């Protein structure tokens, strides 16, 4: 073949990665704005809207993503990588932009949640097809000895997409009031509209790209697959590798990825009651400092092999998740904060008929702040010469919310989240090269897309659901939800350690 692997590789990586980053951005903003979207499109008390809301959350991630992987994977192996991942980008961009244009439930009724559900399903479908195409495209351009490093650029996109989504939402929020942001045609729609500009730019760049040289050669020889799905999953020799990829690598990587980047932030906000902006800014900083390690571990995987780097990321998660999350709980325990010297910034009491709600805002010496809400129950009311005397049963379990750290603890939390994202970079960075090397060119797109999206979409995406299930069943341990990612990562580590080979397949032109 006359193709020189490294010619124009920077441009190829940039064009592929930009589009994938934008697709991740599009997919995330829906999840991050779920609360506002739910108010606008899925109002409480309407059972049909609630059903559509549940479908939008669960069907898009769990059902449609793997289906998108099959549909677009097949297309990518039949007609080529370039046009397929151009199509996924167009579908993703258009559906994201249109979500931003759908009038709210108040204006068009049930049509609003129906439209949003449909567009969300298209988003899930497009995401299912994008990653496999972009990873395959870069890998098929890369020289063997740098395949891990070059494909690690595509691995940064999922994390950077999250970073950009978080950044844009925080930026919009910072420039308007809460009411203006949450209004029917308010600021929450801007991140959706921004998408069309980003996608337009990316489509323009991708249109100029050429087909993958390996796939083009295969097509010129007339050696492409006639039925990629049958060849991928119907032939035992290839199907057993699909199963090995899923259970020995991607399943564990998916839960490590989700726990480090989503569950950690959600735990800080919902369980530890850390302030909205601070919990997100901790994640933003941690991502910013950890992202270069995607490239480092991609590069390292070219030197020492993919297997042990991925498995080390999983094992570290298994070992350190509980200690790290225990620190989160311990350091956000407001009862401990109350033992320090505190200053009351503001205190309000609302007198209710049978209780008094007392809200007190505290601040301590290092700048940490929190709000305590006590609800003292009135057990007796006496009228003594026109003076009302209330007897109280004092609230022994006050709630503590909106916790803001002082500088020292804020940095400590960034460091802890950073450590977990380092586990992500280890488990995730070599995975594109690893998957590409596992399957032959003619069915590569199909074969690698399905295990990737089952591992990430299903196993990873289920972390919050299973965590809630465990927390509801075993109420004594506040960290019980972590046993799901720990268990899956450990199982995957065992399978990977025994069944995977660490050999780098230099020749993917087969």
């Amino acid at each position, binding site marked *: 073949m006359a193709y020189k692997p490294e010619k124009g590789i920077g441009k190829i990586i940039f064009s592929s990665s930009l589009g994938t980053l934008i697709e991740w951005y599009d997919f995330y903003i829906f999840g991050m704005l779920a609360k506002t979207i739910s108010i606008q499109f899925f109002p409480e008390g309407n059972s049909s809207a609630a*059903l559509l809301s*549940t*479908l939008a*959350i*669960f*069907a898009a991630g*769990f*059902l449609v993503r*793997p289906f998108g992987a099959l549909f677009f994977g097949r297309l990518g192996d039949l007609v080529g990588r370039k046009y397929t991942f151009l199509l996924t980008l167009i579908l993703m961009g258009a559906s994201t932009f249109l979500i931003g244009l759908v009038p709210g439930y108040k204006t068009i009724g049930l049509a609003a949640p129906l439209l949003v559900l449909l567009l969300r399903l298209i988003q899930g479908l497009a995401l299912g097809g994008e990653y496999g195409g972009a990873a395959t495209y870069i890998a098929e351009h890369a020289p063997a000895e740098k395949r891990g490093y070059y494909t690690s650029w595509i691995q940064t996109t999922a994390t950077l997409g999250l970073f950009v989504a978080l950044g844009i939402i925080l930026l919009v929020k910072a420039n308007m009031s809460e009411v203006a942001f949450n209004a029917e045609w308010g600021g929450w729609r801007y991140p959706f509209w921004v998408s069309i500009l980003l996608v337009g730019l990316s489509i323009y760049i991708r249109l100029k790209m050429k087909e993958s040289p390996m796939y083009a050669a295969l097509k010129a020889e007339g050696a492409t697959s006639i039925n990629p799905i049958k060849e991928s999953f119907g*032939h*035992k*020799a*290839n*199907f*057993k*590798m699909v*199963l*090995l990829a*899923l*259970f020995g690598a991607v399943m564990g990587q998916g839960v490590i990825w989700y726990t480090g980047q989503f569950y950690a932030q959600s735990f800080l906000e919902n369980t530890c009651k850390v302030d909205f902006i601070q919990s997100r800014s901790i994640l933003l900083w941690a991502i910013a400092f950890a992202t270069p390690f995607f490239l480092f571990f991609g590069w390292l995987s070219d030197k020492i092999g993919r297997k042990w780097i991925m498995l080390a990321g999983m094992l570290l998660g298994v070992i350190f998740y509980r200690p790290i999350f225990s620190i989160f709980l311990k350091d956000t325990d407001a009862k401990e904060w109350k033992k320090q010297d505190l200053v009351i910034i503001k205190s309000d009491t609302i007198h209710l008929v049978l209780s008094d709600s007392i809200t007190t805002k505290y601040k301590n010496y290092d700048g940490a702040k929190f709000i305590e809400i006590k609800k003292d129950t009135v057990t007796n009311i006496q009228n003594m010469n026109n003076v009302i005397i209330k007897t109280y049963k004092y609230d022994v379990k006050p709630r503590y919310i909106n916790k803001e750290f002082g500088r020292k603890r804020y940095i400590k939390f960034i460091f802890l989240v950073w450590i977990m994202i380092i586990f992500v970079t280890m488990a995730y960075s070599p995975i594109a090269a690893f998957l590409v090397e596992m*399957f*032959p*060119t003619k069915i590569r797109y199909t074969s690698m897309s399905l295990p990737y999206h*089952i591992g990430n979409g*299903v196993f990873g995406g*289920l972390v919050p*659901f299973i965590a*809630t*299930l465990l927390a*509801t*069943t075993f109420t004594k341990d506040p960290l019980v939800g972590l046993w799901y990612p720990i268990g899956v990562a450990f*199982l995957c580590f*065992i*399978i990977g350690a*025994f*069944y*995977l*080979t660490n*050999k780098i*397949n230099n*020749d993917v032109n*087969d």
Partner: protein
Amino acid sequence: MNTIKKIMGIAWITIAPAIIYILVMGAIHNINDAGTKDINKPIPWVIIITIFTPIALGLMIFGYYALTGEYDKPPERSDEL
């Protein structure tokens, strides 16, 4: 090493139906009209059990392949696939 891989195959075959059993029991115990969480709604369970059944079946097949020595020597080139 190959003997361990084969023995572990039995574990994978056993784990798969256990996962489905746990999910079905989880659904039976948690679906509740009065509940407000996702785990109390039937739709997520239907979707999850639907998607996990073929995955668990895949784990069983993986275990069967391991037991029959299919992973003793992984293929290195596509003409071996």
